[in-house]
Each structure stands twice: as structure tokens, then as C-alpha cells.
């Protein structure tokens, strides 16, 4: 009896297209390895992708559990990215001067159809403050600040302060009543700085003869606001801090933070 001839089933059109695509020179120039479905390629994907290489190749099972991490650190980082993206879009429309600031913000609502960038930016900022706090809460409750992670906890505390400062400086930019009075209340504290604020204890001691070194026009609050009240100088100062200076610093510290997470042994866990 003749042997039955075996016929290879024809690959589907989609599969053939996929196979063709992944063999083109363009594709192989971007992705240096096959899909991460084998162990070898799961290693390679982490090693060859600049975004994924923040991760280790493998990690302890409890470290991927939401039960352990609450995902708050990751969400803080993601919200920062959202804020950077929406913030850049807002910068296209916003001019930080007394003349235009308020009307540009109103314009975002009136002239941009379906515009939710300002909403995304504001609610995202509030959310980031909360996720940063909860991340810190989780890190404390799991004792993850303990050796060898003491330094990284400190980097985190500085980033917490920067997160609050970013939110605080951004609060002024709409230049409405809510904004200037919140910043007025907040920055009034600076004039009570010991020695460096003109209504702070010890400031009157800093004098040469009768000449007061610390007064309303050169104290800590003045340095913060670029003036003796929340005015044009403060708006520009807060704008530059909010859009350039603070994001640069916090971005730099994030790099340190993530790097140290890896160098201190990856996500914390029982020793």
C-alpha cells in the first residue's frame, strides 16, 4: 500500500505577512532578536531595549505582586511622563506675563475643541502628589529604607519635596484668584524664616550699626518671589522653575533613584 502523502498546511495570509515583515532589513535593524517567547529572547529583550533595560531580566515573584508594591512608584513615574507631555503642549499656548497668563488659560478652554490637556495636567499633578505619598508609605511599611537602601530613601525624600515644589510652582501659573492667594499664603511663610526673613526671629540681629541687612526687599521671601508681593517677577520665576529647573533636577534624581534600586539589589525583599 502506498504511503499517505503528508501535506504541510498552508500558512495563513496574516502569518505570512508577519513572517515577511519581521525578516525585512528595517525590522531586524530595530529589533535585534526574536519575540520574547523563549528564555533566550526574554533575556535579550531586557538587554537590548533602552526603555526596558531599567528592569532586571528576572525578579522575585513577590516583587511583581501589586499586593507588595501597590504599583505606586511606577505610577508616580508614569504620571511624571504624562505631566511632561501635557505640560509641553500647554507651553505652546501659555505666556507667563500679567497681560496674557490668565487669558491664555481661559483660551485653552474657550478655543481648543475637546481640550482636556489642562485638566490632564492638573489632575495628573494632584494624583502624582498622592501616588508619591503612597509609594513612600509602602516603602516604609515594608521596611525597604533599611540597609542597603538608606541612601535611596533619601533621594526619594528629596524627590518628594521636589514633587510638592513642582506642584506649588505650577499652582500660580493660571494667574487667577485661586492661584495668587494660595501662593501668597504659602510664600508668606518665607518672611518668617529665622535670620533670613524680615519678620523672622533673629533677623534684626543682622545689622551693621543702624543699617538692617534683612528687610522686605532682600529677604528669603523676596528671593522666592522676585518682588515684595506675588506679581510679575513671581510669575516668571515660578514659570521657569516649574517648566525648566525643577523638572531637570527631578529627572536627574529619578535616574539616580532607579539606578540605585538596581544597584542596591533590586526590589526589596526578605534577606
Amino acid at each position, binding site marked *: 500500500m502506498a504511503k499517505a502523502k503528508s501535506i504541510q498546511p498552508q500558512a495563513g495570509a496574516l502569518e505570512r505577512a508577519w513572517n515577511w515583515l519581521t525578516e525585512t532589513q528595517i525590522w531586524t535593524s530595530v529589533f535585534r532578536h526574536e519575540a520574547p517567547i523563549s528564555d533566550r529572547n526574554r533575556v535579550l529583550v531586557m538587554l537590548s531595549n533602552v526603555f526596558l533595560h531599567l528592569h532586571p531580566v528576572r525578579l522575585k515573584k513577590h516583587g511583581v505582586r501589586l499586593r507588595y508594591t501597590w*504599583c505606586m512608584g511606577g505610577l508616580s513615574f508614569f504620571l511624571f511622563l504624562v505631566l511632561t507631555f501635557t505640560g509641553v503642549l500647554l507651553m505652546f499656548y501659555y505666556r507667563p506675563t500679567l497681560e496674557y497668563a490668565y487669558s491664555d488659560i481661559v483660551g485653552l478652554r474657550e478655543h481648543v475643541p475637546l481640550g482636556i490637556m489642562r485638566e490632564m495636567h492638573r489632575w495628573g499633578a494632584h494624583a502624582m502628589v498622592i501616588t508619591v505619598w503612597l509609594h513612600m508609605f509602602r516603602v516604609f511599611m515594608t521596611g525597604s529604607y533599611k540597609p542597603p537602601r538608606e541612601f535611596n530613601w533619601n533621594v526619594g525624600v528629596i524627590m518628594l519635596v521636589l514633587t510638592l515644589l513642582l506642584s506649588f510652582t505650577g499652582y500660580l501659573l493660571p494667574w487667577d484668584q485661586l492661584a495668587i492667594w494660595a501662593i501668597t499664603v*504659602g510664600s508668606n511663610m518665607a518672611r518668617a524664616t529665622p535670620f533670613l526673613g524680615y519678620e523672622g526671629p533673629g533677623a534684626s540681629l543682622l545689622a551693621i550699626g543702624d543699617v538692617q541687612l534683612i528687610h522686605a526687599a532682600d529677604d528669603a521671601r523676596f528671593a522666592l518671589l522676585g518682588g515684595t508681593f506675588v506679581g510679575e517677577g513671581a510669575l516668571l520665576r515660578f514659570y521657569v522653575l516649574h517648566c525648566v529647573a525643577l523638572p531637570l533636577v527631578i529627572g536627574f534624581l529619578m535616574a539616580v533613584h532607579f539606578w540605585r534600586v538596581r544597584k542596591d539589589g533590586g526590589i526589596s525583599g526578605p534577606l
Partner: protein
Amino acid sequence: MEAIKGFFNLVADPRLFFLLSVVGLVLIVWKREAFARLSVGYGLMGFLAVFFLFGMTDENFVLIIAKPDNVPIVALIFLVVFFTWYSMREAVLNDQRVAAGEDVIEKQESDRVWVWPDLVYTELIALVLCTAVLVVWSIALEAPIEQPANPANTPNPSKAPWYFLGLQEMLVYFDPWLAGVVLPSLIIVGLMAIPYIDTNPKGNGYYTFNERKAEVTLFLFGFVILWTSLIVLGTFLRGPNWNFFGPFEYWDVHKLEALNNVQLSEYLWVRGLGTALPDNILVREGIGILLSLAYVTVLPVILARTVLKGYYEKMGPTRFYVGAFLFLMMLSLPIKMFSRWLVNLKYVVSIPEWFFNI
């Protein structure tokens, strides 16, 4: 209805509110096995949900809660309550495992998994959900924009951004140089000092309560009570002239509050000794200055020799003193609160001539 609202207005009074939250924390820590039950978690979240739904029927309540910038704080209340319960539950479960001679869950799950797909997909889902929540939130709720800035028109109350309202609430009890500068700096320094003061090697990398009772209790006191609940108080319950208003109360600009606070020096000289205040500032405020100095120098020594002797021996003099100082600074807020509420004490040291009031 009115009775329920009246009850919550009463309970929300800062004195009762603070006292009850401290009692609550003691109960959580002491009865943690009961607190960790699932039914308690569901109950807490259910109670909050019912409370806010009920509140939405009241116009005064809605006025505060539905202010766009206050919405995140409603979320914050739910999240902080949930995660406090949740982390205590994880800690209790781990403690029970240890008591039964097992490993903590994090140890049991210490075999390794691939980052692709296990972690990468979790992250992707989290990002998608986060984006979805943010987009829906942004469509549903417009960002606030009020009248154009007008330096001549001060709103009443004037409030800092919500995350600083705990600090603004401290202004009731401390002068700006303390509430706005020194104490916030000490919070930052204190947080940074935690890993260097806490020498307990246990509880590193897993939830536990039994192995680090004091640390967890102190952190919960600082974060949940002093920080979060004062933010809630400052946002929802402080109205015109920074007067207290219950959650169902109308913000009456003309509400009068008696200002009958007294300085310590007046208690001593005028009421105690029946004489006028001395002219010399240092004599006048001597007792307050001595008390304040003793609070940060003598008291830590006494603590080191008595109640906290064990800690002193474990930590050594430097760590102990820094830790005790930060702890006492944290405690200074409730001390000022209670001395204000119980004996109307305004300042321990009152030298307005030098902008120096404690």
C-alpha cells in the same frame, strides 16, 4: 437626618476629631488582629462611601466636597484609609505566619519570574488603567479657573494648595517661623534621618508589625494623623477666618470665636504672682525659655534613663538624641494643641518684639 448631621458636625470638631483619631490609632495597633479582618476593610470603605453619598444630599457638604481642587482629597481619604488597613492586614498575616513557624509570604514567593512577560504586562495594564482614569476624570471635571488675579481682593478664607494645608493648620498653634519654616524643615530632615536612626535589622523587605512595633506606630501617627488628617481638617473643616465649621455647617463669615488665649508669662506673673509683667524680656519669659530648653535637652536625658532606657542602650547616645529630638518635635504639635484646648495657653515663650514666639 438633622441628628446625624449634628452628630458629624460635633465629631468633626478639631478637639474631638484629633482625640478620636488617636484613640483609633491605639485601637488599630492594639486590636490589629481584629482590624485586619476582611469584614473590617469592607466595612471601613463601605462606611466612607455611605458617608460621602449621604453627604451629597447636603448643600453645604457638596459646596466643599465638589470644589474641583478638593476632589483629590476625597480620593486621598479613601486611599489612605484603604492602604492603612491593607498594610496592617499584610503585616498581621505575616506575623501570624511567623508565629506558626512559617516564612513570611514574601519569602515564600522568592522564586524568580521573568520580567517579560510578568512585570512588563502588569506595568502595561497599570499604565492603561491610569490613563483611562485620568482621561475620564479630565472629561468629567473641569479644572478650576476663578476670577483674574486681584491683589486688592483677598478671599476669605485664603488657603494654600491642599497638600500644604496640614502646615497651614499648624499656624493655629505655632507662629509662621515654626509652622512654616522650622517644622517643615524638620519633617524633611526627620524623614531623611529615619534609616540612620532606625537600627532594627528586622522587618527589611516584608510587611510586619510585631518586629517593628514602635516604628510603624510612630509612622502611622505622623503620616495618617498629623499629616493626612490635618490636611482633611484644613481643607474641609476650616472656613472664613480659619474658623472651624462642621462638614454640614454653613460657612458663616460672621461666626465669632472667642479669643481668650493667654501667654504662659501672663499666667505666671499676672495671674499667679499678681504683679505686672517685668520689663526685662528675659525675666518675663524666663520660665518659658527654660521649659523649652529643658524640653529638648533635659527631657531626652530623662527618657534615656527611664522609659526609653532600652532604646538608649541599643541606639547609642547620638542616634538616641537625634531620634528623641525629632520625636519630641513631632510631639510638640499635639502638646501645643492640648495646652490650647485645655488651658487656653497661647505661647510658651512670647517675645513679639523679636518675632520669637513658641
